[in-house]
């Protein structure tokens, strides 16, 4: 029983961390129809920034700076690698995203020397706490609440502000939105900024639990988060969050059995199952192809 609870708790916690990454994927996909393969690597860079910045300054300064730099990175990636390809076929943009991911990973290898780095201990978050007979870190307990808070704030932003309305319009129809006087480039930049900021928050929570950061540390969480976004219905923020919790719990349940090697395989099997049975995901809108 205690074991089951601890598996469930860590599943929900990891799910919450994936949710923060998945929102970045789902928002970008909703607007640009692009799988931003570099998003997982942005997440990894946020982790590395956390290490380097806390080494030279106190936490209350370094953590906001991590946020700022990650947002800057996301913004620059969009401007440098995706904006020039706005009118190009979708495949070119996706390839560009893969190229950016390759570049970030190689740069990270160069800077860190390829050695795994250890994420600093954040006081309070890393402290252990006992819940229902199992001891765990505070971060595990706090993650789901923090995620819910951020998601509620985000949905408020999207549903009740002018920027949010513009975002919804761009996601609905790119060209018409442009004709209505919406500044597409600004909106897309804002999307990337929100996505990167959430990924930065996610990295603080995720790497407090899994402290070793290698240059490829972002690839797998990134892919899992993307799968979560697809399972929940890509383009939908509540969908991404629900999908992420499902993926997180499934992964931890599989990890707790003897089939540990299949934890990622299980994630992808779920993805394929969803794609085949309900291609639009749990909360996705039905789209019809125009010829």
């Amino acid at each position, binding site marked *: 029983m205690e074991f089951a609870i601890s598996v469930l708790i860590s599943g929900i916690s990891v799910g919450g961390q994936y949710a923060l990454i998945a929102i970045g994927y789902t928002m970008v996909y909703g607007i640009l129809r692009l799988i931003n393969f570099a998003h997982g690597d942005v997440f990894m860079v946020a982790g590395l920034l956390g290490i380097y910045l806390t080494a030279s300054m106190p936490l209350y300064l370094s953590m906001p700076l991590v946020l700022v730099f990650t947002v800057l990175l996301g913004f620059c990636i969009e401007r440098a690698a995706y904006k*020039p390809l706005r009118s190009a076929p979708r*495949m*070119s943009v996706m390839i560009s995203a893969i190229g950016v991911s390759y570049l970030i990973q190689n740069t990270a290898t160069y800077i860190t020397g390829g050695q795994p780095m250890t994420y600093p201990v954040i006081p309070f978050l890393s402290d252990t706490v006992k819940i229902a007979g199992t001891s765990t870190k505070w971060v595990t307990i706090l993650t789901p609440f923090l995620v819910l808070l951020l998601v509620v704030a985000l949905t408020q932003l999207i549903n009740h502000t002018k920027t949010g309305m513009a975002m919804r319009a761009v996601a609905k129809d790119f060209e018409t939105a442009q004709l209505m006087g919406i500044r597409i480039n600004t909106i897309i930049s804002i999307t990337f900024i929100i996505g990167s900021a959430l990924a930065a928050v996610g990295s603080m929570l995720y790497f407090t639990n899994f402290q070793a950061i290698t240059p490829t540390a972002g690839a797998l969480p990134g892919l899992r988060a*993307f799968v979560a976004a697809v399972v929940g219905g890509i383009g939908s923020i509540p969908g991404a969050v629900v999908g992420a919790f499902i993926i997180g719990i499934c992964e931890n349940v599989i990890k707790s059995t003897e089939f540990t090697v299949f934890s990622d*395989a299980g994630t*992808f099997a779920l993805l*394929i199952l969803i794609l085949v049975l309900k291609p639009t995901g749990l909360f996705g809108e039905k789209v019809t192809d125009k010829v």
Partner: protein
Amino acid sequence: MVQQKNKKGAYMALLACVVMLCGIILLENICVMLPQDSVPNVLKPTSQLFAVLKKGAVYSLAAVSMNLLNGFTGLFSLGQAGFMLLGAYTYAILSVPVADRAAVYYLYGGSAVNFSFQDMFGSIFGTEGVGGAVSMGLGVMIAMILAGCVAAMFAYFIGLPVLRLKSDYLAIATLGFAEIIKAVFQWQALGPVTNGANMIKSFPTFSSFNITDASGKVVLRLATFFPFLISTICIAMICLLINSTYGRAFKAIREDETAAEAMGINLAKHKMLSFCTSAFFAGVSGAMFAMFVTNAQAKVYTTTMTYEILLIVVIGGIGSISGSVLATFLYVACSEWWLRFLDSETVIGGVKLPFLRAGFRMVVFSIIIMIIVLFFRKGIMGDKELPDLLKRRTRKEAAK
């Protein structure tokens, strides 16, 4: 008229291939013919040149098979590494000599598959001298063909559900399958067959094709020739497929699925054909990759490998076979050989050059790739082939 021209072109291509293969044999063995002390370092058998040529031959087949799917049929699949893994393992499992199996599978108390093609043919042709060479050659060939077949068979089953998906969903689903296959091959329960997470080794590799005399001295080197031969044959087959009616159907699907269907092309059938063919050749190239690195291990066939091959295809030009081949050799030569100097700290005139240390090569390399992806979107060749370019030049010269 057109027929004649095609025939002439085919003969020219055949001739070019034969000349290239002879050139490779010559290049590989030139160090024996020259006097011992005048051999330049580049031509010695241990030189980077041959490693690059071998890896290039292996990767060019992988790139062309990916191009068949992504460039000619317009199906954006990212499962290449998974199919290469299937090929590599099939080849490895079927070719480890029975005598070495206990040593390779020592963790699992021997292999579940106690049979190899080499031994089977060895019992017919003998294991020594010419008979041994024949049985090894045949064994390797059959294992490679089976490697392709297994990959194609898996592709068929994967394709049944997945090929119905559209562009990026297809990409992510195939990526997922590659990950699943990787996990399955590392599963302990399959250990007696796949050796779990450990590597399978001691199967015939490229250097097994060097012909030695009784004392073990190499008489004729064929280690680089062999991958070139296989790749040339396979790429020629892909070329023939693309120029056939099937190939034209593939291109029609790439241009517009709905229009192609309206013209009477069976979408499901042709997509599946392209997917399976691509997987077949990816499997063969995976088998060759295992021979190149002299082992088969699941953790090598990562998504990064797929990305690498995809980037090669993009650099060469999506929809150009000769472009893919050219780009492969450029890519492999740059990453393994020409840019090596960026990785070592260099001091010129007492000043240590900044930035040069381990890993810098890959940074420079990925920046170059990004520049190509962003500003030279057509790649080296666009969707043209090498003969097209030559033809245009002769026409221009004739006009002068």
